[in-house]
């Protein structure tokens, strides 16, 4: 269909196109005309040597000594999500932040960066950010806000002790913010402080956070915890888990009990799908089972669970845990009930893991275990509030359905909102103050384990704006607070005692991005009440109703990233759904309801209804629908508006994350879901291999004959000193998607929008294929072990005998002497023959001029080291050749030879589990050369004789023999 027709094909199409998405323009715009002129010039044979345009060169007036034009620099800073920080190194080109990397010195990153960190740089340049202070309908300025909050004026309204003053913050662990809040409370003792975020760590006053040491855990059991792919510390945990998984002495074993299907669940060796209501029973059964296995007398008999298979599964898991007592870990999801979390604690205690593999830290979050900090519900209930400061967050959009925030904001005379956007909450507030992006502001933050970092700006505010600390300082009585000064005074107080002096401390803190030994002390044990509250009986699954789970979207989280086109177009890890959310149903449930992917459902509970398309996902527990939050936005974020459905509208405060007894009905409407991968079955093919521990990759192909390596047809041509290659360990890959966003940011990969994705025109150079073992997709979705699912990052394989190269008529894609499959955009005429002949289908084509309509602001994010492709040319993964060449030049400038492990690609750098390894095959100590010789190493489609430079390491399925009977792991399982 044409753009024009597509516009009408889908009711939920966003009103505006996201930044960087081609819009249907006039048939022949002026730019087209100019291009055609260029074309005619080109026809005259002048292309590539056209008359040099008149350009100006503007040097500095005074050259800053630390700056060399054209040479990027890296600054350490930290990004916080739900109050907890991840340390980052941000690349800056001539003053423009262009790329985010993890900070190797930071405990929450260890050099990795997740999708949100990677994509945050695009949010900095989001043209939809608010640009002015607003009061009512008028544009106001900062001074007006300052006058409003000046102590005298404020006092007259909120009373001398601040009875009428309320502050609503997002969860924060920033030492500066906490200190400023203390000052605010000194000044206004009666003022109320409230914290709200839909998916922040537990808000039931539990101040202890589990801090497992996964590097030493032989057996891990997760109770609905997606600890490998989401949460404030997941990068670190994924790293630690992968370290143990890959260590000698056999891989660790991962059990996952969950209701939805998460990357962690897909990574598990054994997985149990249960309804959310059953989880407490399951946890209790596990505890009982463990006690029984350890021969503890007075072990209560295990409560009977739903069915025999489940009980058997739990018994086996319990035995396995007991066998690994002191070397195992039980983790519970942060959004589980107190009962489940306490049972997990009891399990770890029972198993003697405390002080060995399981530790606890006091939550650094404001208000953790502090009754004086109220919740959003308390605030909504509060009467005679005069002035309310909403410092970040979007409660109007994401509050529980039965908390009337809109009413509150209508009641309160003076409401001040601080945020990046004029979002739903901003529009309901009298005042709006543009917030600073974290790459624009000074501040500090703490990580999950308490480690503190400084947040430093890389660029002057693009649209003006202020940060929460400055507003708090205003309220606390400072006349003209500046974040930088506030921060320095705060830390001068605390760093003064250091011998080296404050300046040294300051410089070091900024350089390393971490404040030395600021982590919270680890507690070896946590108090477990003598009597763990008895598990609630699982709700009867009434006929025709579902249990609905609300989960943070792996992409837009709670909606705060909904305006980020990179994240909107990032395929959801398990469904590859882009540009929206859907109700995830198991095949059995879908069959029972008679719905297929795309059919619209009406989910109803408590008089509230949500209309959302269904999507069938093997592995979701039967009778359960999983909804992702963060969609159906209605703020000023044009990219986000109208994309997906607002799922929060269904969930009351009492059941924020799981709601039972939800009625379901088909509306008859159907939506064409924007999936990047509509086919999950393997059809007897073996792109992914699964082996048992220690077993080499199967040498039989699907047909049963022995797989012979295709003999090389042609003699190798002499090569360069380095031969670049990559290995991807499928046993470490969780499919989180960080590599995809990293690639997009590094290589100026455009966004095509929902229509583009539906038309199969997404531009990702690196995609993550998600396969389900066919047996699973058909029947075994309900089986206790759940389906076997494997994620496979797929990118240009840089074949040595590349099928794409010999079919290109103009030598636009050829092979370099160091083994790269080169793509020369400026030579490409766009026959697309190369894509047809690429068996991996990793080539991407510029169907429209995706970069033409980029605004000036968005253009600032572009990486100047990578050509921005024009319409009509093919593009694909280059192994980040710009990094390779820069490294080579740097080495030769420094007069040394380049090491084999010195260069890395954006995807490999971002990967938290180090599943992707890049380097040169030549040279001593080459890691990639070593991994290529691993018994698990294989090449996808090697029977075609393409000799790819990318090798995959087979997924390991470390099955528990006691459970292996239920599902025998083997290569053929993944294949048939």
């Amino acid at each position, binding site marked *: 269909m044409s753009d024009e027709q597509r516009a009408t094909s889908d009711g939920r199409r966003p009103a505006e196109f996201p930044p960087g998405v081609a819009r249907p323009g006039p048939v022949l715009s002026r730019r087209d005309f100019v291009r055609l002129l260029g074309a005619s010039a080109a026809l005259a044979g002048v292309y590539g040597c056209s008359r040099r345009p008149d350009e100006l060169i503007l040097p500095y007036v005074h050259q800053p000594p630390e700056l060399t034009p054209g040479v990027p620099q890296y600054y350490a800073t930290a990004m916080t999500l739900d109050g907890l920080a991840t340390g980052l190194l941000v690349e800056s080109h001539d003053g423009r932040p262009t790329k985010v990397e993890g900070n190797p010195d930071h405990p929450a990153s260890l050099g990795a960066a997740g999708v949100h960190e990677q994509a945050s740089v695009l949010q900095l340049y989001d043209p939809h950010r608010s640009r002015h202070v607003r009061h009512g309908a008028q544009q106001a300025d900062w001074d007006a806000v300052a006058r409003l909050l000046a102590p005298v004026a404020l006092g007259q309204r909120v009373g001398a002790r601040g009875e009428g003053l309320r502050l609503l913050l997002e969860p924060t662990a920033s030492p500066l913010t906490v200190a400023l809040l203390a000052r605010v409370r000194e000044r206004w003792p009666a003022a109320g402080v409230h914290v709200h975020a839909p998916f922040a760590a537990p808000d039931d006053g539990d101040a202890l956070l589990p801090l497992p040491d996964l590097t030493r855990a032989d057996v891990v059991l997760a109770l609905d915890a997606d600890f490998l792919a989401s949460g404030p510390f997941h990068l670190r945990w994924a790293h630690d888990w992968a370290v143990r998984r890959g260590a000698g002495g056999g891989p660790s074993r991962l059990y996952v009990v969950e209701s939805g299907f998460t990357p962690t669940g897909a990574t598990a060796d054994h997985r149990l799908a249960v309804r959310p209501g059953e989880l407490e029973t399951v946890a209790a059964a596990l505890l009982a089972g463990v006690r029984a296995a350890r021969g503890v007398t007075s072990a209560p008999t295990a409560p009977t669970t739903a069915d025999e298979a489940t009980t058997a599964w739990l018994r086996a898991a319990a035995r396995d845990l007991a066998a690994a007592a002191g070397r195992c870990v039980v983790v519970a999801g942060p959004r589980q009930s107190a009962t489940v979390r306490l049972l997990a604690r009891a399990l770890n205690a029972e198993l003697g893991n405390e002080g060995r593999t399981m530790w606890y830290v006091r939550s650094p979050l404001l208000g953790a275990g502090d009754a004086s900090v109220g919740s959003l519900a308390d605030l909504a209930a509060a009467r005679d509030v005069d002035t309310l400061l909403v410092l970040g967050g979007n409660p109007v959009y994401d509050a529980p359905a039965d908390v009337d925030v809109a009413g509150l904001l209508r009641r309160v005379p003076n409401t001040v909102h601080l945020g990046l956007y004029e979002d739903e909450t901003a529009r309901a507030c009298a005042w709006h103050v543009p917030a600073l992006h974290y790459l624009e502001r000074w501040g500090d933050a703490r990580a999950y384990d308490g480690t503190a970092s400084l947040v430093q700006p890389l660029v002057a505010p693009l649209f003006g704006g202020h940060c929460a600390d400055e507003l708090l300082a205003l309220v606390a009585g400072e006349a003209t607070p500046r974040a930088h000064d506030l921060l320095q005074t705060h830390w001068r107080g605390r760093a003064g005692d250091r011998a080296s002096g404050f300046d040294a401390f300051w410089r070091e803190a900024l350089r390393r991005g971490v404040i030395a030994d600021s982590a919270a002390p680890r507690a070896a044990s946590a108090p477990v009440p003598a009597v763990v509250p008895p598990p609630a009986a699982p709700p009867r699954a009434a006929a025709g109703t579902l249990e609905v789970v609300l989960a943070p979207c792996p992409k837009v989280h709670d909606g705060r990233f909904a305006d980020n086109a990179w994240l909107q177009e990032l395929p959801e890890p398990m469904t590859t759904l882009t540009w929206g959310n859907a109700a995830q149903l198991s095949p059995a449930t879908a069959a029972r309801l008679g719905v297929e992917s795309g059919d619209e459902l009406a989910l109803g509970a408590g008089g509230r209804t949500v209309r959302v398309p269904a999507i069938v996902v093997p592995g979701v527990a039967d009778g359960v629908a999983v909804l992702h939050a963060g969609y159906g936005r209605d703020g000023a974020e044009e990219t986000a508006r109208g994309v997906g459905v607002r799922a929060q509208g269904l969930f009351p405060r009492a059941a924020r994350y799981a709601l039972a007894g939800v009625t379901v009905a088909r509306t008859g409407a159907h939506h064409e879901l924007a999936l990047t991968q509509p086919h999950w079955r393997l059809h007897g093919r073996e792109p992914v291999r699964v082996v048992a521990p220690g077993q080499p990759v199967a040498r039989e192909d699907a047909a049963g004959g022995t797989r012979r390596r295709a003999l090389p047809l042609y003699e190798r041509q002499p090569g360069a000193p380095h031969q670049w290659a990559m290995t991807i360990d499928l046993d470490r890959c969780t499919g989180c998607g960080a590599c995809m966003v990293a690639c997009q940011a590094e290589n100026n990969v455009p966004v095509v929008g929902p229509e583009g994705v539906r038309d199969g025109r997404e531009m990702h150079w690196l995609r993550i294929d998600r396969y389900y073992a066919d047996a699973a997709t058909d029947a075994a979705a309900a089986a206790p072990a759940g389906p076997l699912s494997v994620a496979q990052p797929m990118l240009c394989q840089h074949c040595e*005998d590349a099928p794409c190269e010999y079919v*290109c008529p103009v030598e636009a894609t*050829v092979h370099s002497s160091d083994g790269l499959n080169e793509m020369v955009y400026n030579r490409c005429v766009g026959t697309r023959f190369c894509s047809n002949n690429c068996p991996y289908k990793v080539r991407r084509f510029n169907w429209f001029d995706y970069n033409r309509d980029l605004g000036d602001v968005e253009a600032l994010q572009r990486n100047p080291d990578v050509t921005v492709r024009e319409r009509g040319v093919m593009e694909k993964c280059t192994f980040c050749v710009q990094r390779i060449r820069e490294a080579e030049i740097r080495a030769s400038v420094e007069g040394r030879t380049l090491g084999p492990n010195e260069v890395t690609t954006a995807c490999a750098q971002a990967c938290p589990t180090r599943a992707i390894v890049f380097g040169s095959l030549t040279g001593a100590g080459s890691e990639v050369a070593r991994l290529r010789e691993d018994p698990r190493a294989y090449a996808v489609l090697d029977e075609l004789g393409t000799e790819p430079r990318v090798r995959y390491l087979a997924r390991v399925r470390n099955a528990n023999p006691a459970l292996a009977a239920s599902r025998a792991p083997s290569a053929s399982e993944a294949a048939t």
Partner: protein
Amino acid sequence: MSRGPHGTARDARDEARGDAPAPLQLAEFATGDELRAAVERLRALGYRDVEAYSPYPVPGVAEALGRGRGGIPLVTLLGGLAGAAIGYGVQWYTQAWSYPLNIGGRPSNAVPAFIPATFEATVLCAALAAFLALLAGLRLPRLWHPELGVPGFERATVDRFWVRVGGRDRRAADVALTRRELEGLGAVRVVEVA
């Protein structure tokens, strides 16, 4: 050697003898068979420079006049050979000599891959050679010919058959005699070309 429509070597010799060219005379016949008979008879009578005109090739006439193939097959062959050489040469020069690149690991001088384009070049050059050889041999295009002004001659391309004698042919020097002989052959009419 070919004997062109206006004679060649023989003309030269006549030239040497310094004879004036005999006036051209055209005789019209009703049927192709009459034409063939007339031509054969004229040759028997010793006319050297005889040409026949017909709307379609009349069997036997060209043979009677001993017309050859004008060397067209040879030119075509040479054209084909040249085409083959150019075709392969260009490919070898560009791929293996001027800028050899590693393309899919294939050898630069990929003989099998060069066959199709070589073949096409061969055919193209051969065909053009044949066409040009024909035009050149017939000295076409030549919009004006003395015959074309003769009233009634336009039917030579429709349904009538003509014979021309004269030119560098001493046998045709005697206009009256030639005319009688032509009429004797059953010509519908005989016209002297001005």
